[in-house]
C-alpha cells in the first residue's frame, strides 16, 4: 500500500492541485455570476436569456435601428446601404468632384442611384459628383438639421445639400411639433424611469399616437405650427450651409397621404393625416417662391406611384430624381461647365 502512494509523482500532485484550484475558482465565479450578474439581467434566469438571445439572433427584425448620438438613431447599416456611403459618378473631364449630400426619410433609398444614372445619361461629360445618402426611416427636417450640424462639426464640407422632406414632417406631427425624434417617447420613458429603476419597468408603446392631432389643438392651428417649424428648420439649414459655403436645395416630396394617392388607405388617425396634408401641401406650393432654394414636387405622385405601405415605386423614384436633377442642372450646380 505504501508503495502505491509513493507512485504519485510530485508533478501529478501539482497538476491535481492546479486543477482543483481552477475548478474551485470556476465554481465561485459561477455562483457569483448567478448572484451579481443576474441582478441586472434582462431575464430572471440565464437559461431564458439564452433562449431570447438565440431567438433574437435568428429574427430578421432585430436591430432595424441603432442608437446614434445627436440624431438619436439611424437605420442599421445592414438594413439598407450604410448612411452616407457615396454613390459616385466620376466624369472623364478632369476637375473637382462635387460632394452632394442627400437628406431625407426612407424614400431616399433608391433615389440616389436613380439620380446618378440619369446624370450620367444626360451629362456624360458633366462635372464629377459623389452622392452621399443620409436618408433614414422616420427622419424629418429638424433631425436632418441636427445631423448636418453634427456632420459639419465632424469636419464634413459638402458642396451641395439636397433635402427631400414633407411626409415625415407632417405625418408624424407630434415629434415634428415638439421638435423631438420618432423614438423620443421611448427614450424618455427609459431615461426618466427605467434608467434608475431597480424593479420591473413597464414600457408603454405610444408610437401610434405620433400621427394624431393633439386633442386640445384645432387642426388648422396644429398644421400652421408644423409649417412654421418646417420653414424655420429650412432657415437654420441655410444658416449652416452659408457658414460652410454650400449650396442648398429643398424639395417638398410627393406624399401618399395627399390628393388621389390617399384613396382607400386606412390606418390609425388616417383622417387626421389626410386633412393635415390637404391643408399643408397647397400652402407650401403657394410659398414656393418665398422660400429660397425651395421646390414643390408634392403633386407628381399618382395613385399607382406608391406601394401599399406608402413607399415610392421605382417609377416615382425616377420622377423625383429627374426633378432634382433638372433643378440642379438648371441652376448650373451640376451638368456641363460653362467652358465645356
Amino acid at each position: 500500500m505504501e508503495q502505491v502512494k509513493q507512485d504519485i509523482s510530485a508533478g501529478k500532485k501539482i497538476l491535481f492541485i492546479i486543477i482543483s484550484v481552477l475548478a474551485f475558482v470556476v465554481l465561485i465565479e459561477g455562483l457569483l455570476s448567478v448572484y451579481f450578474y443576474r441582478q441586472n439581467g434582462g431575464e430572471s434566469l440565464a437559461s431564458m436569456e439564452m433562449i431570447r438571445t438565440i431567438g433574437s439572433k435568428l429574427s430578421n427584425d432585430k436591430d432595424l435601428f441603432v442608437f446614434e448620438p445627436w440624431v438619436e438613431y439611424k437605420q442599421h447599416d445592414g438594413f439598407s446601404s450604410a448612411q452616407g456611403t457615396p454613390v459616385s459618378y466620376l466624369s472623364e473631364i478632369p476637375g473637382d468632384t462635387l460632394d452632394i449630400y442627400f437628406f431625407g426619410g426612407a424614400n431616399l433609398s433608391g433615389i440616389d442611384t436613380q439620380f446618378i444614372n440619369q446624370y450620367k445619361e444626360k451629362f456624360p461629360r458633366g462635372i464629377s459628383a459623389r452622392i452621399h445618402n443620409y436618408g433614414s426611416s422616420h427622419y424629418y427636417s429638424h433631425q436632418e438639421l441636427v445631423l448636418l450640424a453634427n456632420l459639419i462639426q465632424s469636419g464634413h464640407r459638402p458642396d451641395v445639400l439636397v433635402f427631400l422632406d414633407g411626409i415625415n414632417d407632417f405625418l408624424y406631427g407630434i415629434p415634428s411639433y415638439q421638435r423631438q425624434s420618432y423614438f423620443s417617447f421611448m427614450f424618455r420613458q427609459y431615461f426618466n424611469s427605467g434608467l434608475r429603476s431597480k424593479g420591473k419597468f413597464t414600457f408603454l408603446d405610444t408610437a401610434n399616437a405620433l400621427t394624431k392631432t393633439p386633442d386640445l389643438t384645432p387642426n388648422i392651428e396644429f398644421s400652421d405650427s408644423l409649417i412654421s417649424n418646417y420653414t424655420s428648420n429650412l432657415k437654420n439649414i441655410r444658416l449652416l450651409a452659408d457658414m460652410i459655403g454650400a449650396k442648398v436645395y429643398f424639395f417638398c416630396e410627393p406624399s401618399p397621404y395627399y390628393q388621389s394617392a390617399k384613396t382607400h388607405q386606412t390606418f390609425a388617425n388616417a383622417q387626421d393625416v389626410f386633412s393635415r396634408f390637404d391643408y399643408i401641401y397647397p400652402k407650401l406650393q403657394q410659398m414656393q417662391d418665398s422660400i429660397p432654394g425651395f421646390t414643390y414636387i408634392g403633386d407628381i405622385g399618382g395613385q399607382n406611384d406608391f406601394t401599399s405601405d406608402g413607399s415610392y415605386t421605382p417609377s416615382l423614384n425616377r420622377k423625383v430624381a429627374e426633378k432634382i436633377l433638372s433643378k440642379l442642372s438648371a441652376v448650373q450646380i451640376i451638368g456641363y461647365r460653362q467652358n465645356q
Partner: protein
Amino acid sequence: MNTGKQKTLWVRFRSWIITLLVLLFLFEMFSSMIFFQKYGTAPLAIVQLIKKYTEKSVPQTLYHKMHILTRPDSSKQASIQIANEIWAANNYSYEPWLMFRVADYSSAYVNVTGFERKCSPSEFINPLVNDTIDIFFFGGSTMYGWNLSDAETIPSQLLNLYKQKYPNGKSVRIRNYGITYYYSKQELMLFSKLLFEDERPDIVIFMDGLNDFYPSRMLFHDRPYFAYAMQQVLDGRMFEKSRRTIVDSSEIFYLDVPGIPSSGYYENLFQKYLRHVKHGTELANHVGAKSYFVCQPVPFFNYPNNEQDPISHKDKSNRINFIYPLLRKQQDSLSNFLFLGDMLQNEKGFPFIDQLHYSPAFSGKIAENIFRKIEKDLTN
C-alpha cells in the same frame, strides 16, 4: 420485500431528482457566466464582488466638512444646506438630440430651469446706456457650479467683478449653460440648438478640459455620458416589457481605449478638442458673436500642493499630462484660447470643494482670469 423494493425505488427516484437539480443548477450557473456577463460592470463576478466591498464613498459628515472648510466666511448651517441642495438637484431628464440635461430644480441656493443654472445676479442693467451685452457660458459640472450656490458659480462671480469695476459700464446679461457631464462637442450642439431657436449672444465662453480628457472616451467615441443607456434602449430589446434596469457602464469612459498606443490616443483627443474649438469659433463668427475657449485647471496637472491638499483628487493622469502642455502652446496661435491649466501651480489653500470641483474662492479666481480675457469686449 415489497417495502424494501419501494424504498429502493424511492432512493433511486430521489437520487435522480437531486442529480437533475444539480445539473440544472450547473447549467444555470454556466449560462449566467456566459449570458449575464454582459450586464456586469466587471469582466468577472469575482472582481465585481471585490469592488463592491473595497469601493469607498465619501461619508456625509466628511462631505459637509469639505463645504464648511472651503467657505470660511459662511455659516456652517448655510454650507450644509448648499451641500444638501446640490445632492437633491442631482437628477437628469431626457432631452431630445442632446440626450440629457440637469432636471429642473428650485431651492434657496440651487436653481435649474431648462438648460440654465441660475446666475445670481443674472444681469447688470445701466439705464443710462442703451447697449446690452449677452454672454452665454458653456461647460460641464465646474461651470454648472457643482457643490456651489447660484451666487458662487463662475458666471455669477464674473458679473460681480464687472459691476464693481465698471459701475457706469454697459448693461450685461449672463446665462449659465454649464451642465454636469457635458463636454466640448455636447456644448457645441447646445450652442447650435440655441442658435436654431434664434438666440443671438454677443459673447460665448466655453470652459472645458475635465470632461474632455478625464472621462475621455466620450470625446474619443463622440458619445455623451448617458449614451450607454440610450444604446441599450435601441439594442434590440426596445419593445420588451420587463427589462429590469439599464446597466451602468459609465466607469469605462475613464479608461484608455485598448489596442491604441497611449500617445496616439492622446494625440487624437487633442486634435478632436482643437477641432471643436475651431468649429465653435467658426459658428460664433458666423452669427456675429465673440467666442472664447478656456482650458480649465484640473488637479492632475501642475498642482505641486496636491499631496498636501486634503480634498483634491490624487490620481496621476498621464493622459492630461500629455495633452495639457500641447494645449498650453495653443495660446500663441489661437487668440480666443485661454489656458488656465497652470492656475494651481502656486495654490496653497483649498482650491477644490470636492475631488474635482472648485471651491467658491477658486471659482472667483477663474472668473477673474476669464474677466481679464474678455474685458476689452465689455468696455469697447
